[in-house]
């Protein structure tokens, strides 16, 4: 993370359209107008840790000149729970529930990545059906997470109704996962060697109904947000992250694709059985409203990804093979010496696990690379020079989950 010195207002990368900033009246100019000297000072405001739009317990120290943010520094760590250290002090099996609690809006995807890493470390082959179940659950979770993010973004922009509408459909998705795992947010259903429970025919019907419902509602969400004039005014050209900046800061996920970088782990570095379901990776085109890389495009990419995930789940449900859902595993699992690096595409970006085994029951090192952590860092470069309202729009569009930033 960079220091607290003010960053130049306009990013010095060619081709960037600077966000619309109202002219700041100089204090000396004001003094000459009034005819006497005025004392002005910058206001340092603590945004958070208890603030409605920091999405958790993030503290952002902002320096403001009136409404204009001149510099800011996110302070993280309020939610630190030693997830990695716990991973190193527990047997492999027992760490998985802790993984759920990192990105609690995408627990299945977290489990999926952790299991992939540990399985590769131990050379475990997962049964065919389990791979399908994992993919289906992960994509249902992605749909739920993305429509939630879309609704919450409305809340940040000041539209309260879309939030409740997306929540209604998201809840159906969570119910689906609940029926499989017995919990609404934290599942512990993807296990080392397979999955814990199988999909029943009733569940599959329910899942189809859920996908149909989301597909039917997407135009409604868009009528309230994407197509709304005020929404476009608030998001177009705001918080522009160029492709170069996004790569330099390690921004991943929808935020990266919104900046015009065509990269999706599921397609370009496939894991599980993603290579069997070709899908279209939505990358921000230049023909939309606003500038490529702005808040509008990040929202748009999320909306498009929901459509793609729906299609993936439908095809996977149809192709679901019969068979076992759990590999035969020894009671005490001691992977051979070695190290492994696995990355998966989380709804928020690339989640990577690096595990080192010394041949013991516990790993020697468990390292996670969280997407939210990298994504929040970029605001220090993008936000200065914008208004407080734009800062809220920018942070909301990055869709961070503090549980995973701090881990």
């Amino acid at each position: 993370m960079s220091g607290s010195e003010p960053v130049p207002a306009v990013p010095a990368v060619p081709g960037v359209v600077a966000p619309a900033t109202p002219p700041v009246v100089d204090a000396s100019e004001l003094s000459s107008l009034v005819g006497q000297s005025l004392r002005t000072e910058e206001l340092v405001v603590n945004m958070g840790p208890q603030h409605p739009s920091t999405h958790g317990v993030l503290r952002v120290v902002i320096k403001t000149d009136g409404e204009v943010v001149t510099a800011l520094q996110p302070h993280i760590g309020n939610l630190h729970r030693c997830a990695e250290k716990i991973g190193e002090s527990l047997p492999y099996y027992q760490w998985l529930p802790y993984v759920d609690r990192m990105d609690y809006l995408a627990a299945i995807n977290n489990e999926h990545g952790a299991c992939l890493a540990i399985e590769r470390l131990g050379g475990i082959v997962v049964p065919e059906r389990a791979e399908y179940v994992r993919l289906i659950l992960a994509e249902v979770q992605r749909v739920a997470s993305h429509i939630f993010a879309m609704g919450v973004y409305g809340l940040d922009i000041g539209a309260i109704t879309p939030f409740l509408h997306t929540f209604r459909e998201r809840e159906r998705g969570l119910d689906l996962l609940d029926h499989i795992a017995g919990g609404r947010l934290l599942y512990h259903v993807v296990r080392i060697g397979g999955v814990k429970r199988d999909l029943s025919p009733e569940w599959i019907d329910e899942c189809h109904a859920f996908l149909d419902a989301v597909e039917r509602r997407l135009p409604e969400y868009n009528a309230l947000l994407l197509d709304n004039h005020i929404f476009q005014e608030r998001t177009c050209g705001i918080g522009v992250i160029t492709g170069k900046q996004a790569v330099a800061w390690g921004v991943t996920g929808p935020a990266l694709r919104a900046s015009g970088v065509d990269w999706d782990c599921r397609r370009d570095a496939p894991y599980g059985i993603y290579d069997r379901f070709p899908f279209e990776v939505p990358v921000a085109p230049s023909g939309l409203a606003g500038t490529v890389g702005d808040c509008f495009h990040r929202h748009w990419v999320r909306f498009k990804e929901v459509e793609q995930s729906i299609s993936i789940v439908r095809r996977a449900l149809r192709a679901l093979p019969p068979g076992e859902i759990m590999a035969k595993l020894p009671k005490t699992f001691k992977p051979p010496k070695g190290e492994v690096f696995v990355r998966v595409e989380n709804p928020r970006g690339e989640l990577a696990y690096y595990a080192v085994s010394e041949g013991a029951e516990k790993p020697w090192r468990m390292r996670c690379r969280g997407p939210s952590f990298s994504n929040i860092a970029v605001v220090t470069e993008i936000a200065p020079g914008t208004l407080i309202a734009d800062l809220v729009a920018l942070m909301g569009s990055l869709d961070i989950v503090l549980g995973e930033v701090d881990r």
Partner: protein
Amino acid sequence: MKELLDRLVEGSSLLQAVPRGLVYTTGILLACSGVLLLVSLFAGEIVWMERRISGRMQARIGPNRVGPQGLLQFLADGVKLLAKEDVIPSSADRGVFVIAPYIVFAGVFAAFAAVPLGAGLVPADLPFGLFYVLAITSVEVVGVIMAGWASNSKWSILGTMREVAQVISYEMPLAISALTVAVLAGTLNLTDIVAQQSGWVWNWWVFRSPATFVGFFLFFTAALAALKRAPFDLPEAESELVAGFHTEYTGFRFAIFFLAEYAGMFLFALLTAILFCGGWHLGVPVDLTSGLARAAGFLVLFLKACAFLFVMIWVRWSLPRYRVDKVMYLCYKVLLPWSVVALVVAALQVLLTGGR
């Protein structure tokens, strides 16, 4: 008011024994309490209305437990807020902090003195009623500045800055678009303005001239901004400024701010109906100005106000919030020029047609 009290005194020997000044004072106090009660009641019911309508829009139910359909919810809320601890921040400017909510409320409440609720149903039928109402509502801004400054909180100060800039700016298009009616009507008396709109629906000011037709939409938009209603609710934008100028207020002081906000909504809904949409006239030639029909006239006005309130609520729960500089842009570069054009057109119309 004075004539009514004089008549009362002459009719009763008991009252004649009491000094006349005391009778006037008591009478005025009683009338004020009546209006206060009525306004507070309506404000409370508008809160209920908003919560029910927003519930319907958001696929939920909304308050439906206290009283029939939850109609008495505001009483329960009021009692709850009364029971809350009255927190005054230690670094706050105590005196100013304490009286600020009452000034905000007084600004709105005092406006109701000149607003007719039916033919003759007006506490003070001022000849310059429209000016009085627009002027006295500005007092609210003073209260908000006091609240924001005295709280000694950064979020409050930011909210106050927004509020002051916004409300003072939007009062210009608001007043100018209201003047389109005044110019054509040739009077500032609200009762007279309504009286000119009797008969068929095309006698309503909104349909009588292109200037007032445009003025109607300008007035309503500017009223939304002056009331700090979404999409112009920047002074208390909860996702940006926590709660704006009333961040530090709790309990009943907060309730007073809340009440003032909803009383303001009722006031401007009434004003829109009175100025542009026929007031207590139904839109068909039925006399609702005499005898018991006045009650029906009051009902008609009330229903019109409710329709405008519904639009305000509808807009609030469908639209995102504007950004602070866009709000100013809208005021100075869109609403203000158009309202001036409407006023000039209205003036030309009077000049050319003699006001017919």
